[in-house]
């Protein structure tokens, strides 16, 4: 009965079965090994720590399909479709092993009841798979959402078409084979749908011999197709099913926004300019990309018209790896095309604001930002190539210790303390709590107002704190984000020494970039302090009753989540709680909010580096988001965001219609008048 037990052209079915399997599996393994060897072209990287934690996460996320389901939104149900397909094929995979392997290859018959039951499960799974494929086809070829917009190469078009076709055909073959089997051999019990098909075949009046012969044929076709799919999988470029679980396993476990220092052994070529400069994990990312395009649809640079698409970078690099890989494995010294220039353009490298929306949106944990930063490091540290606006800012960092050009700042670092009763640390002084102001808060007129508000708030709450005044230099974030790593390192080491010399234990800062750098990146250089953003600090003060915000705001406000505070460091609730504790505050949310908040455009060095000419400005887009809420005020907790909104409001000429405030300014205004009189 089993097709395998028959003899074909003198050969027993078993032999043919296993021979085909051996060939297919062999070819599969060979290709898989080749892909593995390509990964080995990359540098080493420590990702085998905390294996237990990694394994549990990966297994739970993949089997529950949370990786796909987390992307589901009202307008984007594709994640649900993927989950159905995954589970469907999961059952099928087991089913194939049982049906083809156990029953076919090993000749062990299954108990009929069990087989009917399992087949029924597969019958339903197949329906779900077919439904999911139909919806996917409609989405891809008819609806065409933004995230799927791409200039697909012929190869990719063929792959996608084959993928959909194969899935449908396999499902059809399942039903067909099943119906034929149950009809030809009159078996019972029968599976739900298979049984119905069998009945209709029987009533169609085909002879058992015909049915059995057709069944055998279908069985072998199904088997060969499966083996074909097995062989094709690693040879196609659609590699994510094979590699993305591994990518999730090897995901980064450190703070999201912390960049790694340049390795100390590196002496000549910094950053990445060729494939071998990447680590193996960064190369694994290239296989794992599912082509979904959610990073593309979330990227502020892309949405404002820049030539940067996070997905394009990943997929172009994958092509580059597959093209150049064979040669490099054979010992070829140079690839035939340049990574920077041919595969990834310099414009794209510089357009990134490091907002992290791409990383947040990615279902399989591809690391885009780190890659772009590595490319930037190569441009700046090895090739000395950067936009002039970047160079001017970095030279300022180097000679003046801050990124703001001298004559434009019109003030000196310590000037903001004039007329305020703040303790400025002198040599030899110590303090437990340091209020770290940041360059923008000390040097740019508009932001100094927020700094002064913050000072008054701290004093009213009776906090014993000190500031560094003119001894404060930049935390180094703009240098690091612009790729100028060694300058960053020097500044970090200098600042850590300063903190240690004053015996600082706790640092409160107004700037999320400083917050991220001091908290998550300074430990790389021996800095170990308790770093808090002021929204967290003020929140605590309110909870402790040290601050009473009794003055009503009387306003409809919306809160803009700074990327480095919200998405990267998870601080969403604290600023909102502060706003909601102020009476008569009507807090509304923008459509893109919290972890999906749209960048203001100021990160990644872009407060100074000019945006690509001829494109929309990112801050204008975010301003539109705010205007759509109907709010009278936008509140934020980052000096860059504040600047970007102010600039946007002025450019659009809507100064009367919308006001932007730093949260510190709002808190100061909400403090009771009798208390605030005593401060400053």
């Amino acid at each position, binding site marked *: 009965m089993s097709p395998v037990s028959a003899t074909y052209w003198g050969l027993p079915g078993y032999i043919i079965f296993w021979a085909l399997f051996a060939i297919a599996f062999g070819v599969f393994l060979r290709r898989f090994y080749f892909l593995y060897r390509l990964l080995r072209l990359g540098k080493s990287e420590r990702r085998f720590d905390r294996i237990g934690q990694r394994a549990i996460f990966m297994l739970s996320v993949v089997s529950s399909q949370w990786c796909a389901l987390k992307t589901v939104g009202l307008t984007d149900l594709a994640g649900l479709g993927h989950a159905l397909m995954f589970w469907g094929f999961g059952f099928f995979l087991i089913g194939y092993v049982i049906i083809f392997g156990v029953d076919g290859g090993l000749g062990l018959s299954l108990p009929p009841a069990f087989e009917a039951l399992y087949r029924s499960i597969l019958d339903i799974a197949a329906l779900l798979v077919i439904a999911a494929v139909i919806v996917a086809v409609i989405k891809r070829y008819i609806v065409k959402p933004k995230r799927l917009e791409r200039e697909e190469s012929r190869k990719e078009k063929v792959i996608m078409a084959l993928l959909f076709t194969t899935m449908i055909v396999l499902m059809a073959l399942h039903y067909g084979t099943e119906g034929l089997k149950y009809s030809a051999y009159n078996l019972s019990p029968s599976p739900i749908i298979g049984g119905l098909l069998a009945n209709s075949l029987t009533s169609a009046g085909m002879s058992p011999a015909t049915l059995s012969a057709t069944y055998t044929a279908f069985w072998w076709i199904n088997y060969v197709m499966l083996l074909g799919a097995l062989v094709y999988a690693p040879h196609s470029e659609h590699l994510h099913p094979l590699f993305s679980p591994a990518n999730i396993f090897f995901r980064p476990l450190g703070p999201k926004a912390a960049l790694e220092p340049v390795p100390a052994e590196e002496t000549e070529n910094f950053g990445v300019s060729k494939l071998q400069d990447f680590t193996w994990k960064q190369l694994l990312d290239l296989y794992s990309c599912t082509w979904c395009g959610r990073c593309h649809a979330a990227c502020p640079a892309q949405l404002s018209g820049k030539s940067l698409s996070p997905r394009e970078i990943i997929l172009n690099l994958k092509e580059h790896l597959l093209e150049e890989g064979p040669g490099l494995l054979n010992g070829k010294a140079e690839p035939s095309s340049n990574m920077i220039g041919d595969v990834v353009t310099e414009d794209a490298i510089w357009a990134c604001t490091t907002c992290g929306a791409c990383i947040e949106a990615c279902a399989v944990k591809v690391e885009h930002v780190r890659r772009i930063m590595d490319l930037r490091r190569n441009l*700046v540290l090895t090739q*000395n190539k950067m936009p002039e606006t970047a160079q001017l800012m970095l030279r300022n960092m180097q000679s003046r210790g801050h990124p703001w050009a*001298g004559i434009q700042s019109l003030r000196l670092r310590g000037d903001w303390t004039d007329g305020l009763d703040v303790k400025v640390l002198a040599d030899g002084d110590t303090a437990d709590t340091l209020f770290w102001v940041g360059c923008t808060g000390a040097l740019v007129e508009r932001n100094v107002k927020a700094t002064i508000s913050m000072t008054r708030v701290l004093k009213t709450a009776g906090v014993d704190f000190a500031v560094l005044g003119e001894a404060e230099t930049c935390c180094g974030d703009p240098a690091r984000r612009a790729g100028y790593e060694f300058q960053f390192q020097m500044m970090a080491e200098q600042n850590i020494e300063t903190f240690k010399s004053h015996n600082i234990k706790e640092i409160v800062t107004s700037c999320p970039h400083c917050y991220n750098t001091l908290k998550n990146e300074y430990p790389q250089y021996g800095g170990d302090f308790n770093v808090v953003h002021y929204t967290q600090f003020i929140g605590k003060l309110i909870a402790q009753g040290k601050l009473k915000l009794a003055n009503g705001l009387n306003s409809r406000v919306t809160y803009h989540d700074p990327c480095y505070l919200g998405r990267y460091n998870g601080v969403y609730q604290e600023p909102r709680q502060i706003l909601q504790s102020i009476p008569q505050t009507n807090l509304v949310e923008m459509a893109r909010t919290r972890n999906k908040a749209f960048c203001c455009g100021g990160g990644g060095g872009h407060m100074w580096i000019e945006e690509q000419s001829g494109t929309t400005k990112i801050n204008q887009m975010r301003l539109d988001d705010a205007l759509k809420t109907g709010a009278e005020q936008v509140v934020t907790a980052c000096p860059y965001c504040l600047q970007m909104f102010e600039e946007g409001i002025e450019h659009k000429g809507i100064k009367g219609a919308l006001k932007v405030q730093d949260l510190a300014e709002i808190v100061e205004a909400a403090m009771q008048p009798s208390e605030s009189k005593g401060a400053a």
Partner: protein
Amino acid sequence: MNTIVCVKQVLDPEIPPAKFKIDPETKQVIPPPGVPPVISVYDERAIEAACRLKDKHKGKITAISMGTEKAADVIKHAIAMGADDGFLLQDPAFENLDSFGTAYVLAKAIQKLGEYDLVLCGRQAADWGAGEVGSILAEILGIPVVTFACDIQGADKTLRVKRLVSDGFEVLEAPMPCLITVSSEIGLPRLPAGPRLMMARKKVIPVWKAQDIGAEPAKLDKANAHTEVTALSVPTRKTECEIIAGATPEEAAANLAMKLSKLI
């Protein structure tokens, strides 16, 4: 090619004018607190010119600076950009020297360094801005000088220099050894990259005093100075600026146009 670059550390030229203060008694500028001094803009261009020549023709670059102990930073900056080593000329006798005195000290230091093919200076210092030291130095050394260079190309024993004049350029050929003063039109200087930045920071810059370079006390004596400053003042400028407003930028522009058409 063996190049010597003379660099000077100056008060940051980009401090806000309101912060600029002088002491009329001592005739000195009072640097505002917390503002680090910087390398003179044109001297940085001179280092860049030296580095470009070294990129093409190999060779050695030595940076020298006459200044306070802080001036070691500008020598380190030169090393970070590409100079091979540097020396700081620091001595109480070197303080407040005029252009001649400065050129003399630099000449003695160059004499001590030995052989060279090219001396590069900025066209003028970003603080006192006289633009004399380079040419005087060349006269003391007895070598030809080309000023206001905006491009230098090397070829064997001769340099091809593009020089800035008010209505265009001149191209000159200068035999080595010679001295060239460099202007900012040479282009933006390279950002000190990678490990050079760290290496330069750690380097200890040797200090040469007057006796190390054999400078005669008579030449450094202030009584024998060629020029001296008898007065230093901050000119007061007060204009009442009439701000022309309008409901929109375009309206303000139209109002301004009407104002101007009455004037011209």
